[in-house]
Structures are given as C-alpha cells and as structure tokens.
C-alpha cells in the first residue's frame, strides 16, 4: 500500500523541498513555505493547461524555424542562405557525417522528440492512458536532460557570425529562423518545466 504525501495533507515545497502540512478547506487562503516563503500547493497549479499552451506555441513556431533560412554565408558578395535541414545536408555532403548527425539531433530530433514526449505525457494524464508510470517518468527525465542541447545551433550561429566577419571575402549572417528557433527552444523548456510528473502517479491512486 503506497501512501502519497497529498493523501496525508502534506505538500512538498517545489522550491526548497521542505514538507508542510496544509489543508484545502478554504480556497482563498494561500499557504507559504516556512523555510523559503514560496507558495505551497499539492501539485503545480494548472500544470496541464500551461504545458499545453507552451507545447502548442512551440509546435506552431517549429514551422517558420524550419522553413525560413537560419544562416546565410555571403562569400565574395554571393549569398547562400541555409535552413536548418539544408545546413545538415551540406555538412553530410562535405563528408562531415559526425557533425551533421550532432546538428541534426540537436536542432531537429531533440525539439520534435521533446514535443512528442510532452504531448504523450499530457495525454497520458488527461485520457488515463494505460502506460507504464515508470517509463513515463523516465521519458520526463529524458526531456529535462536533452532539452538544453537544442541551444547548440544558436550558439554556433553566435560563434560563426563573429568569427566569419571578413568584409568582402566572407560574412555569415543569421536569418529570421534563428529567432523562431530560439523561441521554440525556450517554449519547450517552459513546457517541460510546467508538467508535473506527480499527476502521472496520481492516476494509480484514484
């Protein structure tokens, strides 16, 4: 028989980890942690709604991020705009398969997989899907671990625009997709942080 903290009226502070006893008798009353003064609740408030909002916004911005050029190499006055995917293809064709794979994983695979996993997790809670809680929790930890690696392409842009700034010979300019992609990365990070994994385990308790 497993007992959760919520069943005993105990809330874990998400900021400092301290346990406190709170009651839900009056809605207007708000509880605060005695150790760090952060607001207390049993579960992250409106976790699923916020996750949905960030996920849908990120999914929508994936379109401009992948269609528009992200990087333009101007060599002797001749511009050569690249989208994320065409950049990967060019690296591959230049026999730089390892780097092409890294960029592909960081810029395309990670954001897509991350959004898919978040949607699966939200649906698992909302539709009571019969998925293994252990495996869902592993997926949740996985998206937290890989999320930050999507920043790779953006860091590379900031390195290249500064490094290759050689007047007439060659310059590198960032394209409109860079801002869209930055927004995708930030929104997916927010989406992952908004999801409360305890909601998955609550399905077992009802």
């Amino acid at each position, binding site marked *: 028989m497993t007992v959760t*903290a919520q069943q005993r009226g105990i809330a*874990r502070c998400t900021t400092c980890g301290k346990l406190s006893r709170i009651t839900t008798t009056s809605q207007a009353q708000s509880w605060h942690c*005695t150790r760090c003064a952060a607001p207390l609740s049993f579960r992250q408030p409106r976790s699923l709604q916020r996750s949905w909002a960030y996920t849908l916004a990120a999914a929508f911005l994936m379109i401009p991020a992948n269609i528009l050029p992200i990087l333009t190499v101007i060599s002797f006055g001749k511009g050569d705009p690249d989208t994320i995917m065409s950049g990967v293809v060019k690296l591959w064709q230049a026999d730089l398969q390892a780097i092409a794979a890294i960029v592909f994983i960081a810029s395309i695979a990670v954001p897509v997989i991350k959004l898919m996993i978040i949607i699966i997790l939200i649906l698992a809670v909302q539709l009571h899907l019969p998925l293994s809680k252990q495996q869902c929790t592993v997926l949740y930890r996985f998206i937290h671990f890989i999320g930050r690696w999507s920043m790779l392409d953006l860091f590379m*842009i900031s390195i290249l625009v500064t490094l290759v700034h050689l007047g007439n*010979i060659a310059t590198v300019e960032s394209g409109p997709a860079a801002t869209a992609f930055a927004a995708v990365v930030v929104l997916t990070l927010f989406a992952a942080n908004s999801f409360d994994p305890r909601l998955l385990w609550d399905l077992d308790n009802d």
Partner: protein
Amino acid sequence: MTNASQIPKGLTACPDCDLLLHTSDSDHRQEGHCPRCAATLWHASNPSADIDLAAAVSGLLLFIPAMSLPILKLDMVGQLGSNSLLGGVVRLWLENEHLLAVLILLCSLLAPLMHLLLTTMIGISIRLKRYPRYFPAWLKCKVWMQSWSMLEVYAMGIIVAYVKMMDPGEVSVASGTYCLVGLLLCIILCSQYFHEEQAWQYWEQRS
C-alpha cells in the same frame, strides 16, 4: 498569507511521484532513491564540503579571460577573424537579433557568472555562520541560474563551428577555449558538490 504548520522529522516525499517515505538519519549516509520511481531523493553527505566553494572561486577567476579572450581564430585568404563569448552577443545585438542576443547572453554569460557568484556568496556565509536576510533569495536565484547555464552546450558549439570552418579557411583554437574548458570544469564541480538541501537546513537552523 498563512504559514504552513511543521511536520515531524524523518518524513520525505518524492519530488517526482509524491510517495511518502519514513527515513532514519543513518539512511542519509548513502544516496537515497525513491522505491517507486527511482528519483534521487538525497545525496550522500560528503565530508569534503569545500570543493564547491573552491570550484566557484576558481571559476570566477577564469571567468573574465574565458569571456573576453578569442575562442577560435580564422584565416581566410589572408584575412583574419576571431570570436569571443562576449563578441558573439555584441555581434548579434548589432545585427538586430535582439531576442537571440539576450538568450545567448543569459545562457552563456549571465547564468554561469551568477551561478558561480551566488555559490561563492552562499558558501562564504555558511562558513562564517552569518546568514543575511537575502540568503533564501540567493539560493532560489542560484538554482534558477544553474538551470539556464549552458556552457557545456556552447563548448559543443565551438567544436561544430571549428569543423564547419575547416574547409573554407584555416581555423585554429585560441587561448579563450582553454580558459573556457577550465571554467566548465569548475562549473561541473560546483554543481556536483553543492547540496541545496544542506544549505536550506543551515538557513533553517540559523538563529
């Protein structure tokens, strides 16, 4: 605003699945894991507790050279180019990529700096046993900054940029990269050996 009432010692709740557990002091000698979802519940209490402070101070010393020295150098048909962390942010801002510039400023500069600075401040105040009113704010800010500090991803970005530019020009690693590697090591040590729960307990038992 109501302050929640205390609960007895020896109870732990899993952050990932909310399982309520009874623990004894002897359990805390080793790392603790949740029996239901395998989350890490606490870290082993480490006797060599000065590593976090030492790493944070070393990181701060390396910070300015790592940010301002050139990271890569490029030679294309006799024209020389170089980049630094700070230079990358300035360049993007000048090219009107303001959102991108701010994000990169946060993840590669501001967050690592604040992470090291706050760890130093917290470490010193714990060792002096003097806890200022802002101690909880420092701790909260440290956790937030740590989550946005992405220098390890930046290091991978350097490798990708290096390989990408090998073909069209002559690219070489410059002094900033070595400082950055040192800084990265300090940040990793600093994150590994700093335990928030312990810092919160010091704050709670201050008086």
